[in-house]
């Protein structure tokens, strides 16, 4: 956050933030509230919200921390698009901006949504290393740069849940594991140190897993870290199909 505040000079740009508020203790449903905010050229949507919080309306609630697009706290809908507000620059936005909580997720209050769906999905999909072999004593596993490159892009997920807000299946099926949890499962499936792919299929290839995905690809479009959940899910569908054929042919699969 820039510590300086905009001056009151006539040239100061004024932006209108139309914010979807929801106060469950006093309102049955969300409502809109507008704030006029004097802004600096360098500011992000988050800076403008912080100005509101500090100087206009202290009751506005939202999450944020790092202000550098890595902690994943500050996702919200900005003019209808799932966005990290700390990386959404006002210079690229019109003077009137609509801000809503991330879509498809239950709203706790104002811009704060429930996040357990991702974390629970990760636990169900076993997004941790299931070792291929015990670790060598006093050494790291060997892993070549090429092997690292296989899974590294998928390891970049910051758990911001923008992909959940973009995915129509997340809205349609409350049990769907969701793009990020599946991408993280595939991150471990592709790790040369891991042998958990078959075990993970129990959930990732279940009714709430990869087959729910209709390959709209919006998840990959909105990802701020260029993770490609849609691509990962297609890989997982293929692997799951191969495994099914192997078992049908009595080949036992890759256990």
């Amino acid at each position, binding site marked *: 956050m*820039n510590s300086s505040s905009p001056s009151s000079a006539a040239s100061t740009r004024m932006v209108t933030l139309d914010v979807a508020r929801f106060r469950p203790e006093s309102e049955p449903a969300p409502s809109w509230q507008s704030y006029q905010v004097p802004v600096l050229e360098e500011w992000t949507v988050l800076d403008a919200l912080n100005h509101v919080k500090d100087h206009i309306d202290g009751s506005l609630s939202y999450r944020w921390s790092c202000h550098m697009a890595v*902690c994943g706290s500050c996702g919200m809908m900005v003019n209808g698009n799932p966005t990290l507000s700390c*990386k959404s620059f006002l210079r690229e936005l019109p003077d009137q901006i609509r801000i809503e909580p991330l879509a498809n997720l239950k709203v706790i*209050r104002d811009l*704060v949504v429930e996040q357990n769906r991702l*974390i629970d999905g990760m636990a169900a999909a076993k997004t941790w*290393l299931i070792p291929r072999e015990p670790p060598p004593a006093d050494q790291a596993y060997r892993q070549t740069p090429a092997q690292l490159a296989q899974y590294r892009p998928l390891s970049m997920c910051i758990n911001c849940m923008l992909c959940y807000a973009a995915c129509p299946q997340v809205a349609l099926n409350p049990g769907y594991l969701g793009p990020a949890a599946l991408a993280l499962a595939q991150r471990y499936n592709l790790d040369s140190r891991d042998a958990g792919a078959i075990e993970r299929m129990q959930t990732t290839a279940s009714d709430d897993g990869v087959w729910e995905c209709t390959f709209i690809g919006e998840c990959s479009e909105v990802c701020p870290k260029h993770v490609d959940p849609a691509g990962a899910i297609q890989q997982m569908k293929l692997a799951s199909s191969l495994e099914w054929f192997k078992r049908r042919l009595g080949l036992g699969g890759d256990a």
Partner: protein
Amino acid sequence: MMRTIRADVVIIGAGGAGLRAAIAVAETDPSLRVALVSKVYPMRSHTVAAEGGAAGVTKSPDTLDAHFKDTVSGGDWLCDQDAVERFVEQAPKSLRQLEHWGCPWNRDDQGGVQVRSFGGMKHQRTWFAADKSGFHILHTLFQTSQQFPSIQRFDEVFALDLLVDHGVVGGVTALDIQSGEPMVFLGGSVIIASGGAGRVFPFTTNGAIKTGDGMAMAYRAGVPLKDIEFVQYHPTGLPGTGILITEGARGEGGLLYNKDGYRYLQDYNLGPPDPWPRPKAMELGPRDRLSQAFWHEQRRGRTIKGEFGDVVHLDIRHLGEQKINERLPMVRELARAYVGVDPVHAPIPVRPVVHYTMGGIDTDIDTRTALAGLFAAGECACVSINGANRLGSNSLTEILVFGEIAGLQAAAVASGGARIAEHRFGDQIAVSFERASAPVMRPPSAETIVGLRGELHELMEGAAGIYREDAPLQAACKSVAELRGRYQQLAIGDHSRVFNTQWFQALELGAMLDIGEAMVHAALNRRESRGAHQRLDFPERNDADFLHHSLLSYGGSKAPTFSTKPVTITRSKPAERVYGGAAT
């Protein structure tokens, strides 16, 4: 309505140190119930923002002794050397353990783990995952922790006060942020792993959550804060936002220039400028020296004027686009987004920025505190391996090494000891919730969060920045006491219970005022210059009078009391810190 959670080990903070501690408990004794309490979801913890890497000796010619010597001299001989010995010895094991859990460390062509150069380190020993090392460490730990059923997470639960009976800790009070519901966690031992307090200053790399709550909690309960005057300025933050540009940029070959295009560090006992890379020289000098050099350059009018303060230029263009993309992709992403500079084609404007609190909760080498059953690890703690100036890439290793030790120690206490009867905490629990509710219950006043916080920021930056001296520190001690008094009148407008962020900002401000007060008092008392604590009125290090740890004890509504504690010196006698050509 109050919810009571009975656990064996209660851990406050779920960043790197807290998660590592939780896993250590779960692995050593799966029957112990771990309550992992954090005011944010684990992956939001500020470990996530660390970039450059984690130090641990891997191969010759590097040695544990070299890592020890670099750390002790880097800390200007204020480190406890027994703690540093344990740290450097355990470091490679801790980093390998993380590899075994899947951390995507960068690799060499043979499949081994790659290491890079870092400031103040004689050899390449910093393990890295591009320039997102903290991010990968945190997510690896979080994902690994999910497989242990004995670890129960309490995400978005704000810890308030320790419950203490006759010097023994038996739990902590808390508020569920999502519901506003009061909670009590009871356990045989408690670990604080809640991070640092960089937000006490206005211009910092630290995320919004780093308000020193855990430090202040221990401090209020009677545990002293140790060496809390030592605040690290990182030499390369982006102007305006304070976003960190990793030291890894210099570890890979980045150079610093003043407004004349001159590598000014050679004027500050860090040269000669060539050949590069020369360990412990020039851009690979320690952070305190580099930030101090900026201050002098600014005085001499040799920095570059910028809209958000003066800057110098960090140039990595000569690394080429391929290496920048491979080793420093986030530096490129951040510079392009936040200052509109593509470092492939132009130098990055940077200035010193508050980054790390070397001091913290006073612990011994086993992470024990003055209260039985209470442990602390990570940036909130002072064990102390960082002394007067932390070397870059030692802190990510520290959270692993001492997080694990804290977990094992706390597990041993929890499985052995008898529990304090719950009814003995009744009064403390009532007082704690009354204190926490006060900003919501009070009648309106003129005091505001933004007002008090702004005044605190101004006086901390003015009196306790890169260079300090007596008169401003005296004034700051007086002013922060007044702010603490006025804080007792603070009333907030939002009286709701569900996700009331204004309420938690008010509680965080209380912690920041306590920590800020301890910092200026400690800085006033240390009438010497050592590491990151530089006094214009006492420009030399003074081992005869000040080779000791500062201890600040909470004084309630009065000023903190000051005492000292000896530094543990095992095999490195205090000597002059030497950098530049003479160091190699």
